[in-house]
């Protein structure tokens, strides 16, 4: 018998008992949706916590520190070497110095960070006032919000701060620029215009800081960097690339270290959610098993006549499997759709509640795309396990016994 003819009969059988089939499919769908929603909350919360603590890209970034060593410099040569490593996407070097900012009548002791545009992008700075990051270039000066705050500028007046002239005296660490005479400390004075005010998106406590592009300091000829952030194309490679960098002699650190702890906590959390979810699925499975068994008993005589007419046992076996797999797959697909709809409603309503209370809404719900794939796989599996018993019974049924069945 042709396979698609069996599929046709299976589908007609399901349609013949519309409400029974529908409720069974719906029960599976609810169970699956329950699992997906719980998992999505689990993943969403984890993501939220990660974002709040370290930011998303931290997962795929490695901080490389210079050892303050005169032997192993972290300069453009070494940066190029790291860049050649497989899996490295971007290199973000920075130099940390201290300095004095003269602005109006005041003099502030501040941190000076020499960096490039990528730094702003990947270290979660957002613009408060002034030029956007894309427009920025040397010899602009960027300061963080702390500086106007210290100088008594209110948040709403921060725009007035843009365009002010400032004198910045930068004091370089010894290993950054070597003077000809080998004397330790080097300083530079620059007259600059404040072009942007930024703030840290993660609301981390910061010291007053000025950001300066490398281009603004042409005298820094092949400097040693204080720190290089290495951004990978894929977080899976983190351990591997990190090991390679350490093999070059540098020390590294990664937000991954703290993330690992967060992840352990959330993995446990997710497992608990999953167990709860699968209780729902188990109930649905029992319902489905019940339906299939009833359907078998209901169709004993039918199986009898099919076999008496010459249908092979194997075809009957396959027929029952097609029916169970159709139910569980349709249930899974419906469950996925249901979870998307319910998840959307859930998130939106929380956002509305948050906005109503004047709290900025956060997203705590995230469905990783691969869950869809797993749910389908689990659906297939459920179809196989629930279908097996009725299918094997139908297979073994003697046609005459089946025809006699009342």
């Amino acid at each position, binding site marked *: 018998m042709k396979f698609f003819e069996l599929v046709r009969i299976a589908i007609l059988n399901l*349609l*013949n008992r519309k409400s029974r089939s529908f409720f069974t499919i719906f029960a599976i769908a609810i169970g699956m949706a329950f699992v997906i929603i719980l998992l999505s909350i689990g993943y969403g919360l984890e993501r939220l916590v990660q974002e709040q603590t370290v930011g998303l890209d931290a997962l795929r970034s490695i901080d490389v520190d210079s050892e303050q060593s005169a032997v192993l410099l972290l300069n453009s040569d070494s940066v190029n070497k790291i860049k050649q490593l497989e899996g490295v996407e971007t290199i973000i070097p920075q130099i940390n110095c201290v300095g004095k900012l003269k602005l109006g009548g005041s003099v502030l002791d501040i941190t000076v960070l020499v960096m490039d545009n990528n730094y702003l992008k990947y270290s979660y700075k957002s613009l408060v006032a002034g030029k956007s990051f894309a427009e920025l270039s040397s010899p602009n000066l960027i300061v963080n919000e702390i500086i106007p705050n210290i100088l008594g500028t209110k948040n709403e007046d921060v725009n007035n701060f843009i365009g002010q002239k400032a004198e910045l005296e930068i004091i370089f660490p010894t290993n950054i620029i070597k003077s000809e005479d080998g004397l330790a400390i080097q300083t530079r004075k620059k007259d600059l215009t404040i072009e942007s005010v930024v703030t840290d998106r993660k609301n981390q406590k910061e010291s007053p800081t000025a950001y300066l592009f490398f281009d603004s300091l042409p005298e820094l000829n092949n400097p040693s960097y204080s720190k290089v952030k290495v951004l990978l194309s894929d977080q899976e490679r983190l351990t591997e690339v990190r090991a390679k960098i350490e093999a070059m002699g540098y020390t590294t650190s990664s937000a991954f270290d703290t993330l690992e702890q967060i992840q352990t906590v959330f993995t446990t959390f997710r497992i608990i959610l999953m167990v709860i979810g699968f209780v729902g699925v188990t109930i649905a499975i029992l319902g489905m098993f019940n339906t299939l068994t009833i359907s078998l008993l209901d169709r004993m005589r039918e199986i009898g*006549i099919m076999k*008496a*007419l*010459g*249908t092979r*046992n194997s075809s009957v076996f396959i027929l029952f499997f097609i029916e169970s797999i159709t139910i569980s797959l349709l249930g899974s697909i419906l469950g996925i759709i249901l979870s998307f709809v319910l998840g959307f409603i859930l998130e939106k309503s929380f956002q509305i509640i948050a906005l109503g209370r004047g709290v900025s809404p956060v997203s705590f719900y995230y469905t990783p795309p691969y869950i869809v794939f797993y749910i389908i796989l689990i659906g297939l599996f459920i179809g196989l396990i629930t279908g097996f018993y009725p299918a094997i019974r139908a297979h073994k049924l003697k046609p*005459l016994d089946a025809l006699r069945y009342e």
Partner: protein
Amino acid sequence: MMKTTKSLTSNLDLKKKRELHSIKVKKKHHSTVVIKVNHLEKSFQVSNNKIPILKDISFKVYSKDFLIIFGPSGCGKSTLLNVILGLEEPDSGEVILRDTKTYSLNESERADIRAKRLGVVYQQPTWIRSLSVLDNVAYPLILTGESRRNAINQALRRLEEMGLSKFRNYAPTELSGGQQQKVSLARALVKNPWTLFLDEPTGNLDSKSEEEIIKMLTEINRKGKRTIVMVTHNYSFLLRANRVLHLLDGEVKGIHESIHEIQQFLRNQLMPEV
């Protein structure tokens, strides 16, 4: 054992007829043997007892026969039919369909033979309930891998022959008992089987439907030249057959192979004390 007579005259005296018989024994007009049943034994285990149901049953079915297996309830008619259909394995003996020993085949191969070559109608019409009348009739063809289009066309032709084509899209159980049994017949015939088997096909029907079915069967046998093996305990069918196998307590009590013999048998059955 195979005897035939063309004599339809019942007023001839018994002795003369016997003579006529013996002369015509060798001139049998039956063509090929289509089913050969050899020394079948079948018993059922009921609690601790092994109860013999079929005892050393041997007979042949010839092409274009209308053979009735006749006997009282419980004598083993259905069991015998099911053994021939390959549905009930005998304890010993063999069933040979054309050249194939049924029980030397495995279960799937026996299923395939039923699917391709044997048509069957039971007393109780039974359906694949999710399929329409037309789909049910087409099912045996679908089963053998026929294309849907062909199967449907042939099924529709069968239904038209039975005058039931207007019910093609009905659920089978929406039809009357008589109509359902005709659809069963259409389903059994759609694959042009070697032999059509029927087990008490009119057992549940009113006399009008019974009459229609038996007329159809006669036509299928005479005009359609199809071999029929029918199980019944209904006397009124006996005269439609060309051969009657009389089964009693699981044994072949006799095989009656001419109209005359059947009439004689019928007379004895109806008036056993005579």
